[in-house]
């Protein structure tokens, strides 16, 4: 076939194609998540362990240059502790960049936490290359995500009878009532509907009655009024015949009272297990974090109540004013992004906690970290509720069409006889319903991405080379931190946690005479470093701050200036031979 013929044929094919199949239209893209992701995912639902596992595997396979799935080890019941890493490896491996830690569901019943982590991983990967801000974050930062901190109990919550609040612990057996029998008396699903609701019994001497407007709701009788019912607690029987109901269920320990900073045993801090990191799942996390000193920010997702919490967890501990200022600046953005969320110090705003996760991240690793308590009832009608319980009933009636409640109905109880059970389904109360879940995920992610973007980033702003007398040359580098968070928190400097930032000079054709560093550009109160002058150790660069390093050298160069910060990344500038310039 001659050339003309080939061209003609190709032309014909093109024409034919355009006639019979319209070119593929790009979908209309809303703001936010993309409509045509490589890995389709649905964000108005909850993923159990195996679904989350499969989603993580698909994301890792679809984005091999930017995602990596690894297991830190196994949970108590043998599930994988999935760690998902997001960063563009072409711009440097994960350890070479400031990294952000994200976890969810350390309290397994708080099931939307893992959803935010999954959504964040997916959003970062799917928006990469579509949007500059996300692309830059994935290029410059590393994200370590551990969506399911307590995977055994996540499946327990989803697939076994539970309340919205159970299980908070993992699955390790604990003899809560110390009678030598272990986990022998947990709750019981009396009606077999998969929900652990409330028990009530008709009793002329009871002090409770049915709400006149909301029949599912029980309220107390007036002081001078006879009641109709007594309440008997959550669904259960006295399985071990010791006169108590549900006193020794699965667990109990609190995985968020297992962290070393200010740790106290169970008699001081309810829920503490044997010693810090005596829970294997947490220990895997701790070992990973200790092995990745480039982690410079952290976020844990919990529920509920609408809070952005920071430490200290208890009043025996305190943060310095400058560290608090950093926290306040980040949280201020958070309260704007997360309507009805309050920014609180845990010990004064919520309750006293010894051995909480964020206290370890900050107090012992120098990592600014928040715990968000996801979902707030103000979201029901986008306003404050005058009566919490009635507001819930209204929301159930009007927006859930009554789906949130198991109506009271009769069951036989081996100890109490004929009783009734009813109340909230386990999927409702602390978790957003489908139509609010995606919003919760996106807003919390946006807050966390802001925090991640404010992790320290060192840069060399300028290098000035100034010949002095004879062969003597003055080389001055202005090294800056371009972000809000310092390379070293005060708590870090005080306890000597992270190695200092190092500003170094290398090259050929010169000899160092002296090395100086200064906090201001005029070197009025400069400090000399006598030993190892080629590597000037800087105690930390404040947020949006600078440090100036000056070398007096003998010889024309060339000089290479390098700054290396454990939590703030690195940068390098080369200056040529001055005689050649």
């Amino acid at each position, binding site marked *: 076939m001659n050339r003309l013929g080939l061209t003609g044929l190709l032309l014909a094919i093109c024409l034919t194609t355009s006639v019979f199949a319209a070119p593929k239209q790009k979908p209309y893209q809303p703001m936010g998540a993309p409509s045509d992701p490589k890995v389709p995912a649905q964000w108005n639902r909850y993923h159990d362990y195996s679904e989350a596992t499969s989603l993580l595997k698909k994301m890792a396979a679809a984005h091999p240059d930017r995602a990596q799935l690894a297991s830190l080890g196994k949970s108590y019941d043998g599930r994988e502790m999935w760690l998902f890493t997001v960063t563009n490896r072409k711009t440097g491996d994960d350890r070479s960049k400031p990294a952000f830690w994200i976890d969810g569901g350390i309290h397994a019943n708080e099931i939307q936490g893992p959803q935010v982590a999954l959504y964040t991983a997916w959003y970062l990967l799917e928006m990469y290359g579509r949007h500059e801000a996300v692309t830059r974050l994935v290029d410059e930062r590393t994200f370590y995500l551990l969506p399911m901190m307590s995977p055994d109990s996540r499946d327990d919550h989803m697939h076994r009878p539970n309340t919205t609040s159970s299980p908070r612990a993992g699955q390790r057996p604990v003899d809560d009532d110390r009678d*030598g029998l272990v986990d022998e008396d947990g709750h019981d699903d009396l009606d077999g509907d998969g929900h652990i609701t409330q028990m009530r019994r008709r009793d002329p001497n009871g002090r409770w009655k049915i709400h006149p407007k909301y029949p599912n709701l029980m309220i107390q009788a007036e002081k001078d009024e006879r009641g109709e019912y007594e309440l008997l607690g959550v669904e259960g029987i006295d399985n071990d015949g*010791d006169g108590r109901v549900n006193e020794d269920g699965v667990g109990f320990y609190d995985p968020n009272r297992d962290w070393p900073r200010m740790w106290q045993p*169970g008699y001081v801090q309810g829920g503490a297990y044997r010693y810090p*990191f005596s829970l294997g799942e947490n220990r895997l996390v701790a070992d990973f974090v200790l092995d990745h000193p480039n982690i410079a920010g952290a976020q844990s997702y919990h529920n509920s109540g609408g809070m952005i919490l920071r430490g200290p967890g208890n009043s025996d501990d305190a943060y310095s004013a400058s560290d608090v200022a950093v926290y306040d600046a980040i949280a201020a953005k958070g309260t704007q992004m997360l309507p009805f969320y309050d920014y609180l110090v845990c010990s004064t705003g919520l309750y006293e906690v010894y051995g909480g996760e964020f206290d370890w991240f900050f107090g012992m690793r120098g990592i600014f970290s928040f715990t968000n308590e996801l979902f707030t009832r103000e979201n029901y009608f986008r306003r404050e509720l005058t009566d919490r319980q009635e507001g819930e009933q209204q929301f159930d009636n009007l927006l859930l069409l009554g789906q949130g409640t198991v109506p009271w109905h009769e069951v036989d109880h081996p100890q109490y006889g004929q009783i009734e059970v009813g109340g909230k389904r386990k999927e409702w109360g602390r978790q957003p319903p489908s139509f609010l879940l995606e919003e919760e995920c996106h807003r919390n992610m946006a807050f966390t991405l802001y925090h991640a973007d404010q992790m320290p980033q060192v840069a060399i702003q300028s290098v000035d080379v100034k010949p002095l007398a004879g062969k003597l040359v003055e080389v001055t580098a202005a090294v800056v931190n371009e972000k809000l968070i310092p390379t070293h928190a005060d708590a870090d400097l005080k306890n000597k946690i992270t*190695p200092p930032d*190092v500003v170094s000079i290398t090259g050929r054709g010169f000899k160092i005479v002296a090395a100086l560093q200064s906090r201001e550009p005029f070197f009025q109160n400069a400090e000399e470093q006598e*030993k190892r002058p080629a590597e000037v150790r800087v105690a930390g660069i404040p947020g949006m701050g600078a440090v100036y390093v000056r070398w007096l050298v003998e010889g024309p160069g060339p000089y290479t200036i390098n700054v290396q910060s454990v939590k703030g990344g690195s940068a390098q500038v080369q200056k040529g031979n001055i005689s050649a310039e």
Partner: protein
Amino acid sequence: MKSLISCSTLALLLLLAITTLAGPPAVEGYSDPGAFRGKLQSLAKSKLVSYSALARTLGGNDVALLTVGTGKVDTKPAVLLVAGVNPTRPVDSEVLLRVARQLVKAAETDAEVRGLLDRVTFYVIAQAAPDAAEAFFSKPLEQREVNLRPIDDDIDGQTDEDGPDDLNGDGLITVMRVEDAAGKYVIHPGDDRLMIEADPKKGEHGRYTLYVEGRDNDGDGRLNEDPPGGVAFDRNFTFNYPYFKPGAGPHQVSEIETRAIADFAFEHRNIVLVWTLSDRDNLLDKWKPDTTAEEKRIKTTLLAADAPYLDKIAKAYEEIRGKAKPPKSPESGGSFVAWVYFHYGRWSVATRPWWIPKDEKESVEPKDGNPDDEDKDKKEESKKDERGAEDLQALAWFEKQGTEGFVDWQALEHPDLEGKKVEIGGFKPFLKDNPPASMLDDLAGRQYEFLLKLAGMLPRLKISELATEALGADVWRVTAAVVNEGVLPTVSELGRLTREPQLLQIELKLPAGVFLVTGHARRSIASLAGEGGRAEQKWLVRVAPGETPTLNVRVWSPMVGSVTRQIKLGEKLP
């Protein structure tokens, strides 16, 4: 900053270096960890003993456990004996090994001891931190108490790069004194070998700075600031944990050794008491209650309710050991001994088998101690200048023993301290804390004697009353009373508070055809005081018309033991 790979390579090299540089012991006759393990294993040839490894350390040593007992050992009340928490004191491990040996030997011949083993199990961990214990055999010899975990002490990104160096080549790491007008130390007025801190109140000016013998290996201007290792076993526990302090480790119970022993303890609810041999003593240098401090939510002092019992144990020890005043226990937090009482919730008994005696009277020889003399001494001492007193005693004791325990100061040109007057000298490593091996048997003898006494003080249950009463219509009231005939209560007050130990259970076994009219067959009892603490339990039961079956009552908890008694309805028991 070095990459992690090169850090771990360094760690590996370090491990190799330490294992290949083994020398003779600091004190002749002590066993190195390998030989020590062999001795423990050979004890396990007895049918009464089993050997197991709770963990394998970073350095490849076993955290070894000996279980001494008969039958189902883990179901009986148990005493856990621990030594080697301060690994600079192999004396404690050697003594505990001998105590165990004596116990096993006696049990094979002595019916009373054999009877004890039928009631009580002894768990023995004689060398809690075996890697760190290898320092006693290091070459050059260096008194080091940390394990092998690589730690970047000076946070310069390099790990374990600047430890001590044997500059004078005498095979020992001692001390450098450097003339320095800004120094803190002066020479002791009574003995020019000793250095003491200058006291500005006395108008003294410091003239020396002291360093561990060594160079600035990494050229950062500091000497020995990042030595090999590590974490100190006795600073790694949860009570009063010394955050960020040297040797404390990255967090509480972070080490293979500490974790193995803590896990073992938690998994063995039958442990009622832990006895630790170390440089801490809470019997001769007794823990004191403080009723004001006790009001606080976090308990940091011996509870007043527990004090009388610790006094009784202390009295028993004094009767054997003789009244004496041991050197002050270290004040550092994170200790094993404090953890046992305050967090693990068990009785914690701590003794120090040996220290350099203060004078003739208090020497190794027996049971001395006139309380009046002791008090007089105390008063006089408080007026005296105490600085260097223990060192003077050590020098005197070395002289008496004919031990060359001190390296005389000798000038040396120090490459990193040019132009300064540097001398190397001081006490030889380990000798102040570990006596000649010839004394070990005798020391162990007394500790063994105390062990038997201690074991006799454990709580012991008895169902003292068991009665039935016919109420008519085949309904009976069953009443049982249980008393504690042991010296110690069934649980310490702090143990009760920690909610760590299992509660005492009392249960009426209901045979077929017997029903509870009301109440519950099994109840918990919070605690029974020592020497006669009593609790009573009543049940109402209904039986088949006219029948009088036999009922069993059982009282038990893992750390106290189990007793059962039976009664036929209507029967009168004595």
